[in-house]
């Protein structure tokens, strides 16, 4: 329903939101920046940038171990951020929210520590559309422990074949790890159902939320997943920090991941005992500014009407797909019934790198290549895609510029 989509888009006050993101109002190669690479990283609102400056100007101190004023202040801010995030994702307990270095760090933590509980011939299920960070740690675990890796196949639309998934589940399945939203295809997976089915055979579930936390409400208690991982920098926070949510019951059973300061209770050369949650999994001085400012990013989001934002993003992506499909030879990769915010495409006979390079020179930032999902590219038999990934500060005008830019690029290359 074309008219409806454009009407919805025009109603949304995107300009007020854009003013809060300093990086958006710059020029590249003498042209206004059109930033459509939010799947790679999101731009930051001024409140988050100010919080970083404020931390290093006034609050910088090591946390958890000091007796002085600044260290107490920094500790309070850091733990308050943890609490904010706990509430945002509706995790039952604060100690179930672990700060990590990012999604990759979080998944590696689970692959190592939860992996220590597994034995030879135990089975792990992932899906055909996973990012390398949700493939490689499991492959490494399987090599280490002699476990078996199984893959849920997908169809040509980029949707998981749920009937095949149910056939893969056995009493040997110990973990199912899937992405919530695909970074390449935009597919929204039915993770609640996936979790229910896994739990029936006694398997735990890890959800890669790197691309979903910023696009939809996520409720740990509603999803009932055992682990949920995401990156701070994709949800308008700093790089170098992320979150792993884990159910207390399972985290308590897992041995520590990294050893060092803060994760210990008592250290002697004969024996060392470990701290409880969450510190057991937070060795060493963390990215303190990162954690505090990630809390700030979530506080910023809480002040917005998220349902409206998400609806706007979805409409923008639908509009973009519709307009792009008018270009001859253009094919959308990832046409799931349920998808959002990511538009990956290829143009017949042209290489994505060429299109992406020419878009760059027109001030349009997209991503090209395999997007760390080589298996997806192999499935579709393509070297890569051009990917435009939207956030709620992108505009209809930017989509129009993208479409014009692609048209111009295609004409130059053909």
């Amino acid at each position, binding site marked *: 329903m074309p008219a409806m989509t454009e009407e919805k888009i025009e109603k949304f006050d995107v300009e007020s939101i854009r003013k809060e993101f300093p990086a958006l109002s710059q020029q590249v190669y003498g042209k206004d920046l059109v930033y459509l690479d939010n799947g790679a990283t999101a731009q930051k609102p001024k409140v988050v940038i100010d919080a970083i400056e404020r931390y290093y100007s006034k609050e910088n101190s090591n946390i958890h171990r000091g007796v002085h004023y600044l260290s107490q202040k920094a500790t309070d801010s850091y733990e308050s951020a943890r609490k904010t995030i706990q509430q945002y994702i509706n995790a039952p307990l604060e100690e179930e929210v672990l700060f990590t270095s990012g999604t990759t760090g979080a998944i590696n933590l689970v692959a190592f520590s939860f992996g220590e509980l597994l034995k030879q011939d135990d089975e792990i299920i992932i899906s055909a559309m996973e990012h390398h960070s949700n493939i490689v740690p499991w492959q490494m675990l399987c090599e280490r422990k002699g476990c078996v890796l199984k893959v849920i196949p997908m169809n040509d639309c980029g949707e998981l074949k749920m009937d095949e998934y149910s056939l893969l589940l056995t009493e040997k399945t110990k973990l199912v790890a899937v992405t919530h939203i695909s970074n390449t295809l935009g597919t929204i997976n039915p993770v609640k159902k996936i979790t229910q089915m896994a739990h029936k055979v006694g398997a735990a579930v890890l959800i890669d939320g790197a691309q979903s936390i910023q696009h939809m409400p996520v409720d740990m208690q509603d999803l009932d997943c055992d682990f949920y991982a995401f990156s701070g920098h994709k949800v308008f926070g700093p790089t170098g920090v992320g979150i792993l949510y884990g159910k207390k019951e399972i985290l308590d059973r897992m041995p520590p991941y990294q050893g060092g300061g803060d994760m210990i209770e008592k250290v002697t050369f004969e024996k060392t005992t470990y701290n409880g949650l969450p510190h057991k999994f937070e060795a060493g001085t963390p990215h303190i500014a990162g954690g505090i400012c990630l809390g700030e990013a979530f506080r910023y989001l809480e002040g917005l009407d998220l349902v409206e934002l998400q609806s706007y993003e979805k409409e923008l992506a639908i509009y973009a797909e519709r307009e792009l499909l008018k270009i001859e030879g253009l094919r959308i990769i990832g046409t799931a019934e349920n998808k959002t915010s990511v538009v990956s495409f290829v143009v017949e006979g*042209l*290489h994505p790198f*060429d299109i992406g390079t020419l878009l760059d*020179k027109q001030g349009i930032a997209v991503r090209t290549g395999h997007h760390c999902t080589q298996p997806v590219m192999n499935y579709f038999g393509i070297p890569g895609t051009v990917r435009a990934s939207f956030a709620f500060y992108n505009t209809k005008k930017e989509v129009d510029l993208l479409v014009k830019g692609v048209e111009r690029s295609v004409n130059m290359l053909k």
Partner: protein
Amino acid sequence: MTLEEKQQDIIDEFAIYDDWMDKYEYIIELGKDLPLISENNKTDDRLIEGCQSRVWLDTAVVDGKMQFSADSDAIITKGIIGLLIRVMNNETPEDIATADLHFIGDIGLQEHLSPTRANGLLSMVQKMKLSALKAAAI
């Protein structure tokens, strides 16, 4: 024409383009027109994998001079390959091994030779120089 003179020629050709898109239009033309590596020479041992685009490179020494042919699955990469081969072809191994390929930066395309670009070009240039070093050592 020396290697350096060939570089200067290219710099002069590109000097007329102010606009990025005009520059790339020219590079694309170079990419489309250049007859490069033959299809049956696009073997795995000649392939240089890149994150973004793939490059095939064939090297030979004929009468003491290096002969290169190369190709890419991306047109812009191919166009830049054309320029590199134009400069490096029919030169002695010594000249190639020590060549300072400043012309790429001078025409504003240094990003294509950056390791982060991962388009196979930097690896290709390194392989060309390595093959020249080997030929010079013989």
